[in-house]
């Protein structure tokens, strides 16, 4: 069973005024992600990237179509099961981190899932090792730098071993060193990943495959190298050639 399978997915936000039609965001989205595969999700602002991620983890309900995570359909009655299989990293790390210390936040999911004290400690250590934040366990969240917050927010979902990791704009507001560190961390993770980002260079460094969303549809899906080199395709999707290609 694949970590993620999406079939003919449609989604629209309800109309804000009477008489208005619902605002269609996604139309006929179908794709799948295999074991340990890393897929980039690119598109202009409002293309539906974040909405798609929220649909996958059940924060929104599709109008039509289906989403399967590890073979289980995402429905209200399967949400608890689905959420054990996937981890969602928010765009804003401050939304992800809500307890007082790094340790408490990373331990939040294992404790909720009934891990024993020893298992929780082990899971916290493992997750912090994976994101290279060992030694910061007892540091208050508000004392972390932006880069550390982002890594800590990834650790919060790695503490339970997920098959699928969803990352929403992970490289946003990171300096070059933290960005490089994040790329290394993401590449070292063995689970399947779906990364939504505007940062095409980041996608190039982390995802061998890419999906280009444009006006709620999949405009193109394939090898990242091919998509990110296609200027006309990117421009049609409201994007531009990544810096690493435009300089070449």
């Amino acid at each position: 069973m694949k970590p993620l399978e999406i079939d003919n997915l449609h989604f629209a936000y309800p109309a804000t005024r009477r008489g208005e039609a619902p605002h269609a965001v996604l139309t006929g989205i179908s794709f799948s992600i295999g074991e340990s595969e890393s897929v980039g999700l690119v598109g202009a602002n409002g293309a539906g990237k974040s909405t798609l991620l929220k649909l996958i983890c059940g924060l929104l309900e599709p109008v039509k179509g289906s989403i399967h995570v590890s073979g289980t359909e995402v429905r209200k009655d399967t949400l608890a099961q689905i959420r054990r299989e996937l981890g969602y990293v928010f765009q804003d790390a401050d939304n992800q981190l809500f307890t007082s210390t790094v340790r408490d936040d990373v331990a939040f999911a294992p404790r909720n899932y009934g891990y024993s004290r020893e298992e929780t400690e082990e899971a916290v250590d493992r997750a912090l090792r994976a994101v290279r934040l060992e030694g910061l366990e007892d540091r208050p969240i508000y004392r972390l730098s932006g880069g550390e917050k982002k890594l800590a927010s990834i650790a919060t979902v790695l503490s339970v071993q997920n098959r699928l990791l969803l990352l929403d704009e992970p490289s946003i507001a990171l300096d070059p060193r933290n960005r490089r560190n994040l790329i290394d961390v993401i590449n070292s993770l063995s689970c399947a990943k779906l990364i939504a980002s505007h940062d095409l260079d980041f996608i190039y460094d982390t995802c061998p495959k890419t999906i280009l969303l444009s006006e709620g549809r999949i405009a193109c899906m394939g090898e990242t190298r091919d998509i990110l080199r296609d200027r006309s395709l990117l421009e049609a999707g409201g994007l531009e050639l990544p810096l690493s290609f435009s300089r070449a």
Partner: protein
Amino acid sequence: MDRIDRAVSDFHSMEEEARGKGWLQDLNPLTKLFCTVFYLVILLSFHKYDLSGVLLMGAYPVLLFTLGRIPVRPMWRRMALILIPICLVGIANPFFDRTPVSAGTPAITGGMVSMVTLLLKGLFAVSAAYLLMVTTTMEDLCRALRKLHVPAVLVTVIMLVHRYLIVFLQAADKLTDAYRLRAPGRKGIHFRQWGSLAGMLLLRSVDRADAVYQSMTLRGFHGEFPSGREKPFTRTDLAFISITVIASIIIRYL
């Protein structure tokens, strides 16, 4: 640093102090919660003219501040919003209660004594609550409440209010900063802007609180905060409870 900045910073400092090292911080949260509640009950039970008894009850906060090496000065600022009304509560007593309680000139009236008693009761009660807050994290406090079989819903609400208060303050801080940068030289926020800013603040904090809640549910939260590492109940806890209870009863009844 403006007021909101300071409030957020105070919040964080208090949390950090509560996580610090010290014998008071290391006590079991249940011990501290029990002793604080017991102390407050005994303190509030003193008669309004029993000034000497109330004065003796001041030993509890004074000793804890001293032995626990907890700075007193930040308390005045952090608790000012509560302390000021407390000081005002008994201010009218001397006008209504003119019964003389001692001979001499000027005569000391019952109203004067009850005013001072009320003031001290308030001050000591706030000090005891403050001591609990700066030596116990909210997580530990909520865990202690759960052990006392306080309903999970109530404990979760307390926990979330504590979290969302910071979210709310941060949202307010960003909004007022943005306002101030575009209204240089203006003191405070113009009353015409209050409505739109309050609405914006509400929307932003609800939005942010919603995202935090989503993050929690995605990590298996189902209505009750999981218990983390617990502090053991030691001999120090037993000694602390015994001394607090026995001393309070002696002061109250002997």
